[in-house]
């Protein structure tokens, strides 16, 4: 780790020496250090450096300038527009009053956080969009950062490093051949000297993996296949050769525990999604959470939420780490609200299941048994005629980030109450083609009410503390703050502030587009707390108008 910092520092100094001899302006701007990444969200609000704010993925800011009492006075500071037809699904990063933002079609920008003005723009030369296989939009979920470099995954399944000052490409490494159904949209997680990424393609018959790349060189350090190969434990949970194209993609950023040096990642659905005769067995590690050694990628433990999934319930939700007392014992836990309808608290040292409770109406499993396996209910196997199951294919929740408030010990999540008719039929695998073996359609009819709710869950019991109901299901992520404000969004395009203690409505603004899969972030600029909202093709910065600005000294 120390050697890496030294190496990066030298690399950054080389051009500065030239500049110094010409301009004599003093020391170059400090590099992003592993220590800063470990600190997460600092009390002074000067940084947002990882997907979840910190390695624990709390997305819970220590900032308190904006409160439940004054949030209704928020005023727009600026709006940035991408001028693209596709939307943001990104978490922007902030450092030294500059925002680093990835957009659709692998566009990326550095923006002045004071004004929203562009400093540089990166645009990747992509293969024809018709040949890209991202199932669900040509999107990207954000940068990782270390030293003077930003790291991004691409729709043609590369991972690249950009120079923070210019957006120039430093290195470009191919993860896999995109024409075989691989793509990548995940925000990299930088841990020590490695860039951790994963691949999408669960609907295209890929064999999923998590990769680590050397931040300095772009050389691959390790690969963990999310489907074990022949001779490895778990390969026998896939019938025949189905493991070769079983999906198990990785497209949502995990968490990291530095004390145990373990990464926690949720794994995607098995393929084909709905017709499963060809993949008899539990299909490890699809729909699981895996704990991996960050240095080697070796598996420490796993827990499978949905063995032999038939409903495309990727476990690609955001894992959140916390320390809790459960049953009178202090526990290091990982919390997980799953697409399959259950909320889980697991011991993150051992993988032991501590709490499992439905947080929406679920009709496929009665409960999670003492052995950690769901107790299945009949009538939920998709076929050519269709079978009705709750939750629907999009799930009880999905990739939009939840948050955790350690003061209140509450887990906040945008939940969906929707059922669907699931169909299945046999399908032959064609490389690069969609490989789902079926489809799903939202259930209709007068007795089918589809709606959503922001729910506060006690992670010790799985009980709901309060909820704020939406008229339709929301796909917005969340941001919470130490002052007790939750920022959310609904499907109708309202950006919302909700009281974290009661679930009461505080404030709204119609953004003109939903926060689809995105969360607001918050940080300080010139003494004023800002809230930044990616919605549709816009980024909008908000702050309190009556807080005096402190002009920078340099």
């Amino acid at each position, binding site marked *: 780790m120390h050697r890496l910092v030294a190496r990066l520092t030298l690399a950054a100094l080389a051009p500065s020496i030239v500049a110094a001899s010409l301009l004599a302006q003093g020391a170059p701007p400090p590099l992003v250090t592993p220590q800063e990444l470990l600190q997460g969200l600092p009390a002074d609000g000067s940084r947002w450096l990882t997907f979840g704010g910190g390695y624990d993925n709390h997305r819970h800011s220590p900032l308190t300038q904006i409160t439940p009492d004054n949030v209704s006075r928020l005023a727009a500071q600026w709006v940035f527009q991408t001028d693209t037809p596709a939307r943001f699904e990104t978490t922007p990063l902030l450092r030294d009053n500059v925002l680093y933002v990835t957009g659709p079609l692998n566009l990326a920008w550095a923006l002045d956080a004071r004004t929203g003005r562009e400093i540089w723009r990166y645009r990747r030369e992509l293969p024809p969009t*018709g040949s890209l*296989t991202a199932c669900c939009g040509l999107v990207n979920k954000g940068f990782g950062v270390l030293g003077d470099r930003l790291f991004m995954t691409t729709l043609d399944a590369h991972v690249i490093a950009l120079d923070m000052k210019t957006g120039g490409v430093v290195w470009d490494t191919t993860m896999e051949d995109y024409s075989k159904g691989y793509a990548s949209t995940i925000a990299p997680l930088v841990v020590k000297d490695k860039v951790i990424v994963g691949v999408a393609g669960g609907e295209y018959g890929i064999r999923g993996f998590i990769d680590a790349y050397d931040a300095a060189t772009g050389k691959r350090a390790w690969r963990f296949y999310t489907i074990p190969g022949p001779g490895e434990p778990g390969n026998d949970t896939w019938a025949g050769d189905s493991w070769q194209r079983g999906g198990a993609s990785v497209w949502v950023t995990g968490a990291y525990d530095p004390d145990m040096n373990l990464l926690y990642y949720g794994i995607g659905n098995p393929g084909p999604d709905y017709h499963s005769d060809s993949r008899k067995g539990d299909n490890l590690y699809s729909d699981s959470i895996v704990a991996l050694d960050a240095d080697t990628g070796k598996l420490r433990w796993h827990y499978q939420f949905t063995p032999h999934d038939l409903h495309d319930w990727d476990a690609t939700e955001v894992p959140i780490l916390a320390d809790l007392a459960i049953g009178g014992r202090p526990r290091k836990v990982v919390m997980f609200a799953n697409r399959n309808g259950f909320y889980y608290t697991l011991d993150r040292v051992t993988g032991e299941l501590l709490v499992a409770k439905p947080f929406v109406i679920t009709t496929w499993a009665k409960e999670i048994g003492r052995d950690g396996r769901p107790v299945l209910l009949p009538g939920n196997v998709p076929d*050519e005629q269709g079978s009705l199951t709750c939750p629907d294919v999009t799930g009880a929740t999905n990739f939009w980030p939840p948050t955790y408030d350690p003061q209140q010990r509450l887990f906040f999540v945008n939940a969906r109450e929707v059922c669907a008719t699931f169909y299945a039929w046999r*399908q032959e695998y064609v490389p690069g083609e969609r490989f789902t073996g079926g489809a799903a*359609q939202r259930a*209709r009819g007068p007795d089918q009410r589809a709606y959503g709710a922001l729910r506060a869950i006690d992670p010790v019991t799985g009980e709901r503390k309060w909820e704020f109901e939406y008229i339709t299901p929301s796909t917005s992520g969340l941001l919470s703050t130490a002052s007790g404000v939750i920022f959310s969004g609904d499907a*109708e395009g309202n950006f919302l502030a909700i009281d974290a203690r009661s679930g009461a409505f505080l404030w*709204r603004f*119609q953004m003109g587009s939903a926060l689809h899969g995105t969360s607001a972030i918050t940080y300080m600029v010139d003494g004023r707390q800002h809230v930044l909202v990616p919605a549709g093709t816009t980024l909008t910065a908000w702050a309190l108008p009556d807080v005096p600005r402190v002009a920078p000294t340099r």
Partner: protein
Amino acid sequence: MPFIGAALVVFVLSVSQVVAQDVLVTITANPLEGDAEAIKAGMGAYRVRCADCHGMDARGIRSPDITQVWARGRTDGALFRTIRNGVTGTEMPSFPAPRTSDLDIWRILAYLKTLAAAATTEPVRGSATAGQGVFAAQCLACHRVGTAGGHLGPDLSRIGIARARAALSRQIRGGMTDVRTGYEPVTLTTPGGEQIQGLKKNEDLFSVQIMDTTERIQGYLREDMRAVTNGRQSAMPAFSPERLSDADLDDLLAYLTSLQGAAK
């Protein structure tokens, strides 16, 4: 099978190149016609994405019978474009790439071909000219054809290509089983107790946008209203035989099915 698979890959590449140049019109024959796997996959896709409107047997529920499209002279290429682009002025949506691939569409057509039937000629009943008179008397206040008519109900300028005759007949006689989005009846009650009746154009947690019975379009904040009450029944009246004779209905249906006007 592997051989066919390889052939398909080559085909995918060539089609995507063709699409890029926007000369897809040159593909006139379904390359997957008769392919058992494609038919199977097409059946699933059809049931999920098409059957709600066109029926599991493709004979049409509210949307037209599409078993006779080939018999009536439509080509594979033209049908492909209809699915890809949708039909403007009707509920038929577009299915754009990349979400729907070219092969997805060919598969649906391969399945649909297995349901294809000979063209039937229903005996012509009713007079479209007389039906226009019935329409003017009974429907024009709410529905629009071309530049004439009201705005409360859906525009019917292209209803002849959007609806099967039987579906039109059912709906006129009172079989409106669902309410089209944008036409749900809603009643707003003001703090003073006044009621505003209208059709809901949009809504969110905080507001509702309506066209009231005077055709005024207006948005209201929920907090300004004592109540916002959704109606359950379509605003379209049921025309029983006492109100509209069978002969008048035949004339009206002859007129409506003739409405295949240009999209606006």
